[in-house]
C-alpha cells in the first residue's frame, strides 16, 4: 500500500479543482511506527496529504489515531519509517517545529484557554507586536479587528471578542481554532475528532468548515471514529485498528457501507453477539446485534460484487 499509488483523480460532485498541484505530496508518511517502551502504539502507517484534499483517519478508541497525530503535530517523534513534508524528510522535535513547517493542529480539547478572551486565544503563541526592543508591545486593536474579521469569514458573528472563549459553544470554539489555523498560513490542518462531542447540527457546521478549509487550498487530516462524518467530506481514508493500518483507500475505491463495515468490524459485532448468547437472556438485544451482523456482512458483499 504505497502512498504514491494514489493519484489525485477524485473530484466530488461540488468540489473545486485544487488551486495548485504540487509535484510532491504536501505531507506523506511511509511505514511510520512508534512504540512506548515495549508497547507498540503504531506500526507501518502509510498515508499522504495533498493540498485541497481531505485525508480521513478512521479508527475506534485505542486504534492509534492520537499517536499518529501527535507524531505529525510534533508532540512525539516516530521511531520507524519516514515522514516527508513537501518531499523533505522531517522529524519534528516540538509543536513549534511542526507549526513552522505549516502543520497546524486543532485538538479534541481545542487547545484554547477557557478563561482568556477570544482575541487573546486567537493569537496565542503568534501575537502581533509593534515597537521594538524592550518596548515591544502587542498590537491589541489590530489583533481584535483581525479576530473579528476572520471569524466573520467563517460565519461566526461575534460582537465582543473580549469575552472569555469558555463562554462559546463547542462548535464555535472549533471554528475559532480552525479559523486561527487558516489565518496563520497552515498548509496542513489536523483536526482531532472535531465532531466527537457535538450534536448533529453542530457537527454539520464543523464539516462545512472542513470543506471551507479544503477549498482554500489546505490539506486536511480529519481524525474521526464516525464514517458517516468522514465519508461525505473525505477524499482518502486511512483505517486504523490496534495501532495498525488495516486499509488505505481512495474515495473511488470504497463506499460508505464498506467503510462502515470495516470500521465497525463485522468480526467484532459477531463476537459481541456470541458473548451475549453465552451470557443467556437478553434475547431482544441479541436479536438486534445479530441482525446488524447480517446487515454489515450483506453490505460488504454487495459492494464487493458491484466492484468486481
Amino acid at each position, binding site marked *: 500500500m504505497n502512498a504514491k499509488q494514489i493519484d489525485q483523480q477524485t473530484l466530488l460532485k461540488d468540489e473545486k479543482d485544487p488551486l495548485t498541484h504540487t509535484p510532491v505530496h504536501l505531507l506523506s508518511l511511509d511505514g511510520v511506527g512508534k512504540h512506548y517502551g515495549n508497547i507498540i502504539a503504531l506500526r507501518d502507517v502509510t498515508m499522504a496529504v495533498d493540498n485541497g484534499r481531505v485525508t480521513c483517519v478512521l479508527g475506534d478508541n485505542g486504534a492509534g489515531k492520537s499517536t499518529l497525530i501527535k507524531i505529525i503535530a510534533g508532540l512525539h517523534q516516530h521511531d520507524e519509517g519516514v515522514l516527508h513534508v513537501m518531499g523533505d524528510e522531517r522529524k519534528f522535535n516540538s509543536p513549534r517545529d511542526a507549526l513552522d513547517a505549516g502543520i497546524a493542529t486543532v485538538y479534541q480539547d*481545542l487547545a484554547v*484557554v477557557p478563561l*482568556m478572551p477570544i482575541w487573546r486565544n486567537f493569537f*496565542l503563541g503568534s501575537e502581533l507586536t509593534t515597537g521594538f526592543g524592550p518596548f515591544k*508591545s*502587542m498590537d*491589541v486593536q489590530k489583533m481584535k479587528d483581525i479576530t473579528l474579521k476572520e471569524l466573520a469569514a467563517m460565519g461566526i458573528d461575534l460582537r465582543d471578542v473580549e469575552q472569555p472563549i469558555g463562554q462559546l459553544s463547542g462548535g464555535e470554539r472549533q471554528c475559532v481554532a480552525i479559523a486561527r489555523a487558516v489565518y496563520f498560513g497552515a498548509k496542513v490542518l489536523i483536526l482531532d475528532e472535531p465532531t466527537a462531542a457535538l450534536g448533529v447540527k453542530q457537527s454539520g457546521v464543523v464539516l462545512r468548515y472542513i470543506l471551507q478549509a479544503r477549498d482554500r487550498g489546505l490539506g486536511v487530516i480529519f481524525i474521526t471514529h464516525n464514517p458517516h462524518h468522514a465519508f461525505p467530506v473525505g477524499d482518502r481514508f486511512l483505517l486504523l485498528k490496534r495501532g495498525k493500518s488495516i486499509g488505505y483507500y481512495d474515495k473511488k475505491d470504497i463506499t460508505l457501507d464498506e467503510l462502515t463495515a470495516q470500521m465497525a468490524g463485522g468480526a467484532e459485532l459477531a463476537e459481541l453477539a456470541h458473548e451475549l448468547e453465552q451470557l443467556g437472556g437478553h434475547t431482544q438485544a441479541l436479536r438486534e446485534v445479530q441482525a446488524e451482523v447480517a446487515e454489515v456482512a450483506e453490505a460488504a458483499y454487495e459492494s464487493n460484487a458491484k466492484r468486481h
Partner: protein
Amino acid sequence: MALVTAPAPKTAADERVAKRSPLSTLMARPEVGALVGAVVLFIFFASVSGTFTQPNALATILYGSSTIGIMAVGVSLLMIGGEFDLSTGVAVISSALTASLFSWYFSMNAWVGVVIALLVSLSIGFINGWILVKTKLPSFIVTLATFLMLTGLNLALTRLIGGSVSSPSISKLDGFDSAHAVFASSISIGGVEVKITVFFWIILVAIASWVLLRTKVGNWIFAVGGDANAARAVGVPVTKTKIGLFMAVGFCGWVLGMHNLFAFDAVQSGEGVGNEFLYIIAAVIGGCLLTGGYGSAVGGAIGAFIFGMANKGIVYAQWNPDWFKFFLGLMLLLATIVNLIVKRRAELK
C-alpha cells in the same frame, strides 16, 4: 447594584451575545472586589481614627503596604501563571544576607554585594522554576523545600561567616551611603517624607501591568496558568515562561532585600519566615485565582494596600495590635467571598 441587574438591550444581533454595560465590564475586572474592600476599609478607619487620614500617617501606611506590595507584584504574576512560591519570605532575607556578608567578608564596595545578591536572587528563582518544570512536582512541594533549605542556610552561613545570628554592620563600607540613598531614602512630597520603596512599588506595578496586558509575554502568562497543555500545543514556550516568572519573583525579593539591608546596616538571619503568606494573601485578596489564569498586578497592589491599612489602622485606632492577625484572616475571607460573588455575577452578565 441596581444598574447591574438592568435588562439587556433588546436589539442584539445575536441574542446570545447581549451588549455588556460599561459597569458590568468594569465589574468583570479581577481587582474590583479588592477595590471595594479597600474603600470600605479606608472609610472605616478614617471614621474611627482622626489621625488615619493625616498625610504623615498615609505615608506610613503606604510604606507598610509597599514592603508587602513589592513582593506581591511578583507573586501575583506567578499566581496568574499557575504557580506559587513559599520561599519568598526567606528569599528576601537570603538576598540581604548575601549582599551584607559578601561585601563585609571581602571588605568590598557595598555595590559589589548588591550585584552578587541580585545574581543569587535570580538564581533562587531559576532553580525553583527549573526543578518545577523538570520534575513536574507541584510548586507547593518544590518551594516548600526551597523555603526550608534557605531558612537553614540563612542561619548557618550567617553564623559561619559573621559569627552571630545577625549579619555584621556594613555601614562603614564604601558605597554604603549611595546604596542607602538608592534603596532606603525618603523623598519629600509637599513636606511629607515618602519612603522610596513606595515609588519602587508603583513602578513595579506599572511595569507588571503593562507586561501582563500589553505584551505577548503577558499573554503567555495567562495561558500557562489557564491551561499549560493548550498553551504548549499552540507554541507558547511554557517552560521559559514559568522559569521567567520565578525569576521575576526573585527580582522583587532582591529589591525588598536591599531595602531591608540598607534601611539599617544589618539583617537578622532568622527573619522573613511567614512573610511568604502575606504576599500570597495580598495576591489572593487582589483577585488572583489560586488555580491560575486570572488576576492582575493592580489587584495584588490593592491587596497589599488593604494589608497596610489594616496593619497601621489598628495602631492609629489605638486598639491592641494583637487583633491584627484576626483582622487579616477576616479580610482574606471577606475579600475572597466578594471576589467570588463579583466574578460570578460578571460572568452571568
